[in-house]
């Protein structure tokens, strides 16, 4: 049994190549102080733009608020006008409806007034159901659920 002769691995002739251990730094576009200065510069510029934006937003808010203030009395008056008109319609409807009922007077329960001590010309504001007393239930429900539709 012939024993194989062991051969030792040896370095290549001329030796190994030198190990590249030299540091290769990334390319720098800006220096540190330039970066910090740029940060502050851009922040200052955007702050100025933000200020301009704030100005315009505030101006628009004032504009809208003034428009609301100008419109509000008119809307209020319109609502009051519709309210008074409806009261008149209700009174006329009651008069027309109960004209054949004996003993009925408009604004009373068979001649019994709602309030006794109030002066005659006091406006007794109707309740919600009373306001819609002569209306279809659909109209009543429409007003009741108005806030859910909007």
């Amino acid at each position, binding site marked *: 049994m012939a024993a194989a002769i062991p051969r030792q691995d040896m370095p290549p002739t001329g030796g190994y190549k030198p190990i590249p251990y030299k540091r290769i730094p990334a390319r720098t576009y800006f220096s540190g102080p330039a970066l910090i200065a740029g940060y502050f510069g851009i922040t200052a510029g955007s702050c100025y733009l933000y200020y301009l934006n704030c100005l315009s937003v505030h101006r628009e808010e004032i504009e809208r608020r003034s428009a609301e203030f100008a419109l509000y009395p008119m809307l209020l008056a319109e*609502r009051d006008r519709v309210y008074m008109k*409806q009261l008149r*319609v209700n009174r006329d409807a*009651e008069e027309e409806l109960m004209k054949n009922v004996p003993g009925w007077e408009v604004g009373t*329960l068979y001649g019994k007034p*709602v309030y006794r*001590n109030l002066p005659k010309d006091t406006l007794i504001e109707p309740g919600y159901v009373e306001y*819609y007393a002569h209306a279809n239930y659909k*109209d009543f429900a*429409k007003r009741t659920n108005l806030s859910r539709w909007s």
Partner: protein
Amino acid sequence: MSLSPFLRSPFTDLTGAMVSHQWYGQCADMELKVMDCLEAYGVDKGRKKCDTLIQDFQECASRKIRNQRIIEMRQERHRQYKAGERSKEDLYVPTIKTNGY
């Protein structure tokens, strides 16, 4: 004041003033008038003297006459419709605008 509860205790003192119409406003004036009147005449005499004031206040608080009025008018309307005196288009009065109230 002559308006004290039948059995007075610290609890009635504490809770007596909690519920009143002075918080709500609509009947506050009437309630004050009733209280003034009752305080002036006392309970027994005041019941007669302040009768209309008390009835007004009770009406304002309970709305009995108003609700009875609404019920009577609805019933009359439906009676007329069933009796044929009122057509279907004529049954209800159209509301002028939804957001009037």
